[in-house]
Each structure stands twice: as structure tokens, then as C-alpha cells.
């Protein structure tokens, strides 16, 4: 079963510029999936479409069988955007209350217990938290919604190595404990095998490569996922250059 199914999915911004074009992919349920690709490859666009933030220009995207952005899909999906945007001026306690009142389901005990375990005081202001704590608070809020799918956009970008490790450990544990699915985007390819059970490599809005981390390693003669991803991206960049060259010749 797939938790995200995209078919011919495309999003055009403004005049002619496509953020994502003719993308068909499936994200398997029940594991942590890493969505890898260089900047501008359409990762954020794909995730924004999946959480219903924006609407597709072409094609469809479904989340746990529901049309992305529908009431049902919103209820099933929890999203942590890049840099974990939260209300800086609120105390953590009120930030939780705001989130509770914006959702149909809310596991208050779990949120409070998690924050307690992380040593984040409820009376502290969100703006006073460290980057790692803020990311953990955003994750806590997302998990308290009891989602079936957790979507994380570049969750590691702003974190130091220790906070990264802690954060992804939390995600893995939550996915295992609740039997849910998680997708996160990243442009950092190092140490991915420790974080993701499944990998999708995106280049220019197209799926270059996908499979379980172990499967990719086996299929490519024991190369690390990092090496496999890098060679796929390099190939894609060369193809794009050739395509550009041909286009220039054609116009000449």
C-alpha cells in the first residue's frame, strides 16, 4: 500500500516556470521515506502538493487514498514545514493550545509527556527555544495530531549534527510506535541509510531512482546509498546539459 500516490503531477508557477512536471511516484506506507534531490528539483513543490498547501496544475496526488487537501486528507496528514515555523511570541503551552484548537484530534497527554522528556518547559516562549528544541516542538505538535502520514520538509537543514540525529531518531521511533508513515525531503545525502528505509531521488521533477535503502545497495553492487544517489544525480545533470545543448542548436 502506498501512502502517497502521484500521477502525472505538475505544478506551474506564474508564466511557464514549472516547479514540478509530469511526476509519477509512490511513497510506500509504514516506513520513513527520504525524498532526495538537488535544490530546485521539486521536493518542496511535491510535498506542498501532498499536504494540500498548493493545488496541482496537472495530474493528481492522493494521500492515504484521499485527495490531497481535502478535509479527510488534512486530518490524516501532519506537516512540519522547513525551519519549523511556529508562533514565536507564544509560550509553548499556548502554542499547544492553538494547535489543539485547530485540529479535530489531539493527544494532549502525549504532547506534554514528549516535551517533558525533551526538557522543554511549557512556560517557555517558543521564540526562546533552540533550533533543535523548536524542531522537536514542531514534531511533537505534528505527532499529537495522531496522523497517518508525517510530512517533513527539509527537517535537517537548520539543525546541528547532534540535533539531527536526535530528531530523526524521534521520527523513526514515532513511525514504529504508531505504525504510521513519514516522508522527509533533504538535499543532504550523507548518512541517509541510517535515517531512511526507503529512498526516492528526484531530479528536475522526475523520479530518477527509488527503492528500499537496502535494495538500492544490493542492486548497485554494494555501493552505499550515498554513492548510488550521487551517480544518479550526476547522470541527470549531464542529461539536462545535453538537452539544453540540443535545444540551443535547434534554435540556432
Amino acid at each position: 500500500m502506498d501512502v502517497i500516490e502521484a500521477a502525472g503531477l505538475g505544478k506551474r508557477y506564474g508564466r511557464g516556470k514549472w516547479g514540478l512536471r509530469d511526476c509519477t511516484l509512490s511513497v510506500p506506507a509504514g516506513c520513513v521515506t527520504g525524498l532526495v534531490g538537488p535544490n530546485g528539483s521539486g521536493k518542496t513543490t511535491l510535498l506542498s502538493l501532498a499536504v494540500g498547501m498548493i493545488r496541482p496544475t496537472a495530474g493528481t496526488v492522493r494521500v492515504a487514498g484521499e485527495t490531497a487537501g481535502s478535509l479527510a486528507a488534512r486530518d490524516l496528514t501532519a506537516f512540519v514545514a522547513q525551519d519549523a515555523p511556529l508562533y514565536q511570541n507564544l509560550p509553548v503551552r499556548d502554542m499547544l493550545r492553538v494547535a489543539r484548537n485547530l485540529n479535530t484530534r489531539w493527544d494532549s497527554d502525549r504532547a506534554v509527556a514528549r516535551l517533558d522528556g525533551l526538557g522543554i518547559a511549557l512556560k517557555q516562549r517558543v521564540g526562546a527555544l533552540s533550533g533543535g528544541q523548536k524542531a522537536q516542538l514542531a514534531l511533537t505538535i505534528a505527532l499529537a495530531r495522531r496522523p497517518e502520514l508525517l510530512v517533513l520538509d527539509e527537517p535537517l537543514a537548520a539543525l546541528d549534527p547532534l540535533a539531527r540525529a536526535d530528531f530523526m531518531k524521534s521520527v523513526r521511533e514515532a513511525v514504529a510506535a504508531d505504525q504510521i508513515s513519514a516522508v522527509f525531503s533533504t538535499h543532504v545525502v550523507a548518512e541517509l541509510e541510517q535515517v531512511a528505509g526507503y529512498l526516492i531521488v528526484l531530479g528536475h521533477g522526475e523520479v530518477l531512482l527509488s527503492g528500499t535503502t537496502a535494495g538500492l545497495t544490493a542492486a548497485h553492487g554494494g555501493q552505499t546509498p550515498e554513492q548510488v544517489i550521487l551517480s544518479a544525480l550526476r547522470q541527470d545533470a549531464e542529461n539536462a546539459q545535453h538537452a539544453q545543448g540540443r535545444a540551443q542548436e535547434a534554435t540556432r
Partner: protein
Amino acid sequence: MTAAAIPARMLRPVPWTRLAWVTWRQHRAALAGAAALLGTIGAYLAYTGREIHRAYDAYAGCVPASMRAQQRGGMLMGGAQACHLANRAFFSFYGSGQGSVVASGLNAQTVPFLLLAVPVLLGAFVGGPVLARELESGTFRFAWTQGAGRVRLAAARLVPLAVVLTAAAYALSALFSWYIGPFVQAGVTGRYPMQLFGTMGTDFAAWTLFSFALTAFAGVLLRRTVPAMAASIAVLTTADVVTIMALRQHYAAPVVVTGAGPAGNSDLVLANWYTTTSGVPVSQDTVLRAFARLPFGVTPSPAMLAAHHWLQWWSYQPASRWWQFQLTEGGWLLAASLLLITGTILLIRRRPA
């Protein structure tokens, strides 16, 4: 037979009351600011208004109604010494009537001019951040993706804030109407001049609502709070001036009469002009030259004009139409505000980021 499906999740939207709590939590500071502003003005109006009413009661108890009707401006001829004191005490609340608004200080004549700024500022300062703050700080990526959904969230913010703000503005303008009432009753002023038309009846509340809706809309369009407030204040000021100068007097076809014209100052006089009895226009200069010997401030009476076979014409809006005018302006402002609020929600729906 199929097994009864157990609904794993209750698919119903987040209740409005819960969303209203979020609105309250995020805007209580702005609402406290608005309450402080309105409360300060209200306290001033209540305190001074009580003194005005007391002075008016003393004045009206002393000067007979027939005399009050003629007097209209403070000068009292004859009568007891006590009456002169009561007269002076009452009119002192209206200021000297000379000099600029700023130079003559706070009095019943200048206060309404200052109040005219309140709807614009109140609407802009509360309406500006409502959605633009989310867009400029990036928290919309949190807020728009919660279970409630962005359309419901935007509506749960715009509608309660609009209602509360409009009600508060209406309460203040009701207080002001009571405060200024004695001067209207005494015939010192009509209710058509812009500073009173805009602060009494429903106009004050309607402009506050319009200001709020316009600034919220501008905030989503420009995606920034401060530029949205600046743009909105500029547009509102222009709209206000155009309404006062060019629009308001045309809400109904004016009454055109010949003869002595409207008495008192409660009507809104739009124009007066002269013709011959057969209807040929006569210039104002011709008339003034013919009556050059009249004392300053005295206008030729219909009888004097008749000697030259001239008629004086007036076009005016009678005082009896004041509420009709209030509701006309309130009506189009309400319609425009509803359109803007709907437009704001549609913008959020169509273009979240």
C-alpha cells in the same frame, strides 16, 4: 452481509468555537490596544458629555425655546444675569469657533474632527496583521496545514474580529451622539457636516468595518503588514474625501425650491442661484450689485428680489433625509466590506503562499 465499517476517524470540521479561541489568543493584544484607545476616548466623552448635558439643562431651563431657536450661536440678547452665565457656560463647551482645530484645543467643535481618524486607524491596525502576519513570518505554512483548513481559519478570524470591531465602533459613536446631542438640539449645528455625519448614526461603525476589511485584503494581496496598512490608509483617506466631497450629497435628488430657502442649519444646502421670474439666469454679481447697500451679512429677502422681478432658488437635502443618507452610505460600505472579506478568503484559498 457486510461487516459494519467502524469509522476510524470522525470526519467533521473543527468547531467554530475552537477556532474563535485561537483568534482570541492571537489577537487579544491588538484588541486590548483597540479597547484602550476606544476606552480613553469613551471616558473623555462620558465625562465631558455629562458636564455638557448639565450645562445644557441649566441653559434650556433659563432661555425660552423661541429664543433658543433664533439664537444658534451663543449671543444672548436681554434676559437675566443668571441666564447669561448659563448661556456662556453651555457654549464654552463648543469652543470659540475661531482658529484651527489644533489651536482651539479639545471641545465639542473639534472632537468630531479628531474622531474621524479613528475608523481608519482602528481598522488598519487590527486588520493589517490578521493574515499578513502569517504570510510574512512564514507561520502560514503551519496554520494553513492544520486540520481546520485555511479557508475556515481565515473566516474564523475575519468575521469575529469584524463584528467585534464594528460593534465597539458603534458603541463609541452612540456615546458621541449623546455627547454632541445638546448642540444639535440647540440648533448650533446640523448633522450633515462631514465631521458629524461621519461620527454619528451608523457611519462611524460602517467606515471602521470597511477599513478593517480593506486592510485585511491588502495584507493578503501585499503579504506584508506595514505596507498593507500604509496602502490601506492611503486608499481609505482618498475614498473618504471623495465620498465627502463628491458622493454623499447625491444619495438622493435634491429638493429645489424658490423663496426664502431652508431655515436653520439642519439641512444640507447644495447650491443657490438667481433667475428672472421668467426663468432666465441672473448672475450673482448682478444681484449683489443691485443690493450693494445692504448691511454686511444681510441677504436680500424674496420681497426685495421681487421688485427686480428676480427669484432666488435653492437646492438642498432636507434634515429629514439624514437617516436615509446614513443607511445609504452604511449600506454600500457594508456591501463593499463583505465583498472584501469574501475576496480575502478566496485569495487565501487560491494563493496560499
